[in-house]
């Protein structure tokens, strides 16, 4: 039986990461949380909840944390699938399970979550516009027809995991990942997912101002 690893990058998410790990446990036995130099007790809470915790000695950024989690999971000889999952509880475990199953069934090399394939996710008009613009720009520059490139829920097999190699440590990693996929040309699928906007994820997650950063990085050639 091939193993599926959940990779959760976290930075000062102590108040929520415990619940997220516990909600994943019944479905996924292997959860690795990458603690990106948190100043709170995220690492201890995640470990107590049953996750493997890889701790960055210094804060490097979310992209670096994702890459670390991927490299950790790649050491497992029985690795079948890696699922990236956000620490703030905005993703649903059932979506992650369905996506992992599609990868394990070899339907595609990578399955990308998209909140725009059905109308479950409630979005503000402005946020929808920003995400749509980002998706349109990434389609123009890479030729990949992705509806939601900035969705943190993704499932992929070891072949994609070995070849992603993220080097953009900060927010630009989502665009970098799409660019890597454009070069790699894996078999990819989009899977409808629901994003749960809790008060916590709204307060903590990407504000609209951060969308400015994403757009600038995109149009400046993500450098």
């Amino acid at each position, binding site marked *: 039986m091939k193993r599926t690893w959940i990779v959760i990058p976290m930075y000062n998410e102590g108040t929520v990461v415990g619940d997220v790990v516990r909600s994943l446990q019944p479905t996924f036995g292997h959860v690795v949380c990458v603690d990106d130099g948190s100043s709170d007790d995220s690492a201890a809470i995640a470990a107590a909840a049953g996750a493997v915790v890889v701790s960055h*000695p210094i804060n*490097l950024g979310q992209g670096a944390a994702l890459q*670390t989690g991927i490299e950790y999971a790649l*050491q497992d000889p029985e690795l079948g699938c890696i699922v990236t999952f956000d620490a703030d509880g905005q993703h649903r475990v059932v979506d992650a399970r369905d996506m992992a199953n599609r990868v394990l069934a070899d339907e595609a090399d990578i399955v990308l979550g998209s909140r725009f394939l059905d109308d479950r996710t409630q979005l503000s008009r402005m946020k929808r516009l920003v995400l749509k613009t980002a998706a349109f720009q990434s389609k123009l520059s890479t030729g990949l027809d992705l509806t939601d490139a900035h969705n943190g829920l993704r499932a992929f097999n070891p072949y994609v995991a070995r070849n992603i190699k993220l080097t953009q*440590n900060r927010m630009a990693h989502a665009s970098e990942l799409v660019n890597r996929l454009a070069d790699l040309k894996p078999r990819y699928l989009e899977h409808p997912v629901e994003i749960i906007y809790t008060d916590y994820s709204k307060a903590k997650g990407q504000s609209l101002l951060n969308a400015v950063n994403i757009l600038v990085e995109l149009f400046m050639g993500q450098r």
Partner: protein
Amino acid sequence: MKILIQVILILSVIIISLALMRGGSNARHLAIRRLLLGFFAIVAALSIFFPNLLTKVAGWFGIGRGTDLVLYGVVVMLLVFIATTYQRYRAMEISVTKLARRIAIDETPKPWEVEGR
């Protein structure tokens, strides 16, 4: 005439920046930096001995004063400096990331090794 010098300056900025951004070997970058520095030193020394020289050279390019030529030169040097510094910053960031990642992964227990036994 002014547009000509602007075009030349912009082209030189782009070419030098591209050359330095290409990655290349560090020895090559070092050599380019030393050449630029040597050129700068010679020009600086000459302009001290012949104060009107810069204005004369500026005249060839259709620039009014020698100080303007110096200003343009400074702009080019600044852009080159920014480009090289950015490259070195990126290279360092990547090294630090790899080092931190190695430490983090090495310190973490590997459950599959236990399960396998």
